[in-house]
C-alpha cells in the first residue's frame, strides 16, 4: 500500500483523547451552570422586592461568587497553554452568564457598572482587555455580551419596580441604560453576534422609556413632585 499507516493508526487515539478532554470540560460547565442557576434564583427576588431590600439581594448574590471563582479555576486547569480558543465555545455561554450575574449584582448594590477590576476579582480570572493573554481568561466579547443581557434584565426590573411601588427606580435605570448604550456606540462593531445583540438594546431602551413616560405623566416619581 502506498500509504504510510503510522499517522492513521495514531489519529484515532488522538481524537479520543480530544473527545475526553471536551467531555471533562462539559462536565465542569454543567456544575458551573448549576451555580449560575442558584445565583439567578437569588437575583430573581429583586423583581418583587421593596426598594430598600434591593441592595441586600445584590450582596446576597455576591456572596455566592466564591463558587463561581472555583469553577473558573477548575476550567482554567483543563485548558492547555495557548489553546484557549480551541475549547472556548464549550464554556463561553456559561462564563458570559456568570459575568452578567456579577454585573447585575453589582448594579443592584451600587447602581454602577461593574468595573474590570471588580469582575476580575469576583471571577478570579483576567479579562483580555489588550488581546495579550495567552491562557484562560474572560474574553472581551463575553464581557460585552453580558452588558447587553444586563440592559435586558434592567428593562424587566423597570417594569417590575413600578408594580411594587418604586417609581424612582425606572428613571435611574433609564439614565444608566442610556449611558451603556452610548458606550456601545463608541465601538466599531462588525457584522457579528455582538452587533446583532447590540441592535436589540434599543428595544430595551424603548420599553424603559415607556415606563418612565407613564410615571412622568402621572407625576408619580419624587423628581416629578419636585418640579
Amino acid at each position, binding site marked *: 500500500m502506498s*500509504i504510510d499507516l503510522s499517522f492513521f493508526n495514531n*489519529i484515532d487515539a488522538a481524537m479520543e483523547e480530544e473527545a475526553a478532554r471536551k467531555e471533562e470540560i462539559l462536565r465542569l460547565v454543567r456544575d458551573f451552570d448549576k451555580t449560575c442557576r442558584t445565583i439567578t434564583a437569588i437575583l430573581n427576588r429583586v423583581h418583587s422586592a421593596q426598594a430598600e431590600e434591593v441592595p441586600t439581594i445584590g450582596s446576597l448574590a455576591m456572596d455566592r461568587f466564591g463558587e463561581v471563582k472555583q469553577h473558573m479555576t477548575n476550567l482554567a486547569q483543563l485548558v492547555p497553554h495557548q489553546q484557549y480558543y480551541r475549547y472556548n465555545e464549550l464554556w463561553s455561554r456559561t462564563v458570559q452568564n456568570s459575568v452578567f450575574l456579577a454585573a447585575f449584582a453589582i448594579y443592584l448594590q451600587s447602581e454602577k457598572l461593574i468595573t474590570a477590576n471588580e469582575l476580575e476579582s469576583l471571577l478570579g480570572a483576567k479579562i483580555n482587555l489588550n488581546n495579550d493573554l495567552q491562557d484562560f481568561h474572560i474574553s472581551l466579547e463575553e464581557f460585552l455580551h453580558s452588558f447587553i443581557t444586563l440592559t435586558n434584565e434592567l428593562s424587566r426590573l423597570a417594569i417590575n419596580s413600578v408594580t411594587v411601588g418604586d417609581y424612582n427606580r425606572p428613571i435611574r435605570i433609564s*439614565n444608566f441604560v442610556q449611558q451603556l448604550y452610548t458606550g456601545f456606540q463608541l465601538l466599531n462593531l462588525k457584522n457579528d453576534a455582538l452587533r446583532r445583540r447590540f441592535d436589540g438594546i434599543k428595544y430595551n431602551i424603548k420599553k424603559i422609556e415607556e415606563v418612565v413616560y407613564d410615571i412622568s405623566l402621572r407625576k408619580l416619581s419624587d423628581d416629578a413632585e419636585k418640579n
Partner: protein
Amino acid sequence: MATISDPSSDDIAGEVSIRSLFESFRDSLDQHYDRRERIVKASRDITALSKKLIGLAHRVTQKPLKSILQEANEKKDEISQLFKEISLELQGINYYRYHKNISPSIQEFIEAISFLEYLQNDRLITKEEVENEFKDETGTQFLLITDEDYVLGLADLTGELMRYAINSVGKGDHDRAIKVCQFLRDMKTVHPKSPLGRKVDTIRQSLSKVEDACYAITIRGSEYPKEFYQHIVSEHARSYEYVEEEE
C-alpha cells in the same frame, strides 16, 4: 430620555467611567477585527492560488509531468510566502482564535500538494511532509497543521483523484484509472471515520464514481471500438465536472 432632574455629580462620574471603559474596549476590538480581516483575505488569496495549482496538476493528462512540476514549484513558493507572512498574525493564542478563518486555505493547499505528490510518486503525502512545506530556511515550522486540516485536505484530494481517473480514461489510459481506483480504496480504508463523517462521504462518492468508470471500460471495452467508448467516458466525465461545480 429621563432628564427630569439635573443629574447628580455621582451620575456624571458614572457616565465618565462607563465612557472610558468603552473607549478602552474600542482599541482592542478594532485590533481584533482588523487582524481577522487580514487573515480572511490571506486565506482567500491562498485558496485561489491553490485552486490554480490543482488546475495545473490536472493538465498532466495533456502535458509532460516534468514541466508541470516545475511550474508547480514556483506556485508553491508563492503560496508558502503568503503563509509565512500571515503566520505572524497567528502566533500563540491567536492560532486557535483565528484557526477557522485560515483553515480553509490550509486544507486547499494540502489538497494541491498531496495531488502533486501522488502524480509524482504514486503515494499519499504524510503529515510530516505536509508540515515540511510550512518550514522556513532554518527548519522552524512557522504554522501549525492540525490533524483535522490534514485529514480534511486528504478527503478533498479524493475528489481530484476521481477527476484525474476519469480524465485518464478519457485519454485511453485505463491502467492509470484502475491504479487510481485502488489507491482510493486504500484511502477509504485508512481514513478516520469520526468526527469527520461528512467528508468520509466525499471519499465514498469519489470512489464509487471511479469504480463505475473502471467497470464501464472493462465490460464495454471488449464490445466497442476504442475511440467510441473514449467518447462515452469523456462525456461521462464532463457530467461529473458539472456536478462538482454546482457543489
